């Protein structure tokens, strides 16, 4: 989809229409891209589109709809308890309730990106129970950090859902942007080695001349592609997945069983405390 920059009302309408279509396709869970309720390059618009998940009318409407279909979408979060703290956030709604809100941890601020100028960083990667097993959320750049994947893996995620507004960058003789390959490579690897379903939703359209690449994809716990949407084109990309594949993959290769989070933790302690040494 292509959200309208800075217009929550129009974007809510877009969400409602898409939800309608997804329900006709009998989808159980619908994932929207990053900042789907607001558009991406907000800059100083951030404060005017921020929502409180507990009180915003948009959340009331979407919660009601989530009784029939699970929803993941992106928004700018600002809670009354943390006035002036704006988060680039993702919400997971199901059964009429908010099951989880993830705040983007890794805010890209280099080159063309300036998120740290406008957003406060999140501080956690936490898994949560859903009607479709244990899941974890990531937002765009989070997905490119192996630590994010590891924490969700260690937390028991059977599926990771990533919402994204990744620009297309770099040309070659092949179709598509060279940057798209980077995302697909991570998806394939993490599907295989975290032995989870990897669901990645990227937006399309242009903002200030930047093309968002699209190409949403799903990888299985065996690291096999379950399909990819077209680059640059808006699409309702629907895939059936068999959640039993997680068990199948983890029986064949017991990466999860053999993982040693306590070793990781102890080593990390030493590394982090060694920073000042």
């Amino acid at each position, binding site marked *: 989809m292509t959200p309208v920059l800075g217009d929550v009302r129009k974007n809510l309408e877009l969400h409602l229409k898409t939800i309608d279509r997804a329900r006709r396709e009998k989808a159980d869970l619908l994932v929207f891209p990053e900042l789907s309720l607001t558009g991406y390059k907000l800059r100083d618009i951030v404060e005017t589109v921020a929502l409180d998940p507990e009180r915003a009318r948009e959340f009331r409407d979407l919660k009601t709809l989530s009784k029939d279909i699970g929803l993941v979408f992106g928004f700018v979060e600002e809670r009354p308890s943390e006035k002036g703290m704006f988060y680039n956030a993702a919400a997971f709604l199901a059964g009429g309730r908010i099951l989880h809100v993830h705040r983007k941890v890794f805010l890209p601020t280099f080159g063309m990106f300036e998120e740290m100028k406008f957003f406060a960083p999140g501080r956690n990667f936490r898994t949560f129970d859903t009607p479709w097993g244990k899941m974890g959320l990531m937002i765009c750049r989070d997905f490119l950090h192996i630590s994010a994947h590891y924490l969700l893996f260690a937390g028991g995620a059977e599926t990771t859902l990533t919402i994204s507004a990744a620009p297309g960058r770099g040309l070659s003789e092949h179709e598509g942007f060279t940057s798209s390959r980077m995302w697909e490579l991570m998806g394939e690897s993490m599907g295989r080695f975290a032995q989870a379903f990897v669901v990645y939703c990227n937006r399309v359209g242009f903002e200030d*001349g930047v093309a968002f690449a699209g190409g949403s994809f799903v990888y299985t716990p065996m690291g096999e592609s379950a399909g990819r949407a077209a680059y640059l084109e808006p699409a309702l990309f629907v895939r059936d997945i068999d959640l039993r594949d997680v068990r199948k993959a983890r029986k064949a290769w017991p990466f999860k069983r053999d993982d040693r989070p306590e070793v990781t933790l102890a080593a990390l302690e030493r590394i982090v405390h060694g920073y000042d040494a």
Partner: protein
Amino acid sequence: MAMTLNGPFTIRVLTAFIREELAKAGFSKAVLGLSGGLDSAVCAGLAARALGPKSVLALIMPYGTSFSADMDDAREAARAFKIRSLVIDIAPMVDAYFAAFPAGRSGWLRKSDHGRSTGRSSMRLGRDDGGSAGRVRIGNKMARERMSILYDVSAREKALILGTSNKTELLIGYGTIHGDMACAINPLGDLYKTQVRQLAAELGVPAKIRAKQPTAGLWAGQTDEGELGLTYAEIDKILYALVDERESRAEVIAGGFKKKAVDMIVARMKASEFKRQMPPVAKISSRTIGHDFLYPYDWDK
């Protein structure tokens, strides 16, 4: 070579860019200046594909009858893409100005400089042009005359202006600020000349235009490569290393490029940065345009 691009995919991106940026601004038509050269022909081809040929107007703006071959090529490009074209001679406007303020003079304007116009068009390109400094003034004036006409037609036709400056020109500042560099949106600004050439073949730009020596049309026989002292192929490779690959000057030279060529390009990039940015605003208040009043270009679009 990493400068190779996938033609169909690049065309998809650029046509979507033209369509979406225009639609967001509330426009469905585009206008552009067609010079008879490669860049504007490629831009015209992209616009015709993006919007449909009927929604694109090309202005062919020769200076009198000089460069009549270029005018013919411009007409051929318009025909090839089935877009409307309109010829507007800029000689009367440019001549009127230089009749009053001859290009051969320099220094402070004096009262006595004004009003020397005899009422007839006395200035002709290449004659009494005041040497190279005068030629630059004339060239800039012509570029801005064309810009001024494009903006007027843009308002009249409710059409946005498509820029035709490529990445090579923009980086080395080989263009007139507020002249040919002025536009509403620029589909070509991230493509090196070498890449524009690749796209031209893909789009079906007439072979005659693709075979031409690039020229800014400043004077008879002028070519970009002659004036710059390097071929576009060389310039693009150096720029690609410096800009896209983020190599240092020393690394580029070590990569086999002539020191003199690399230094010339680095110097041109630095000297022309002002052409690529909004002019600095003197900061006085707590929130200032260009400093900390930060909105997207597509604000409320």
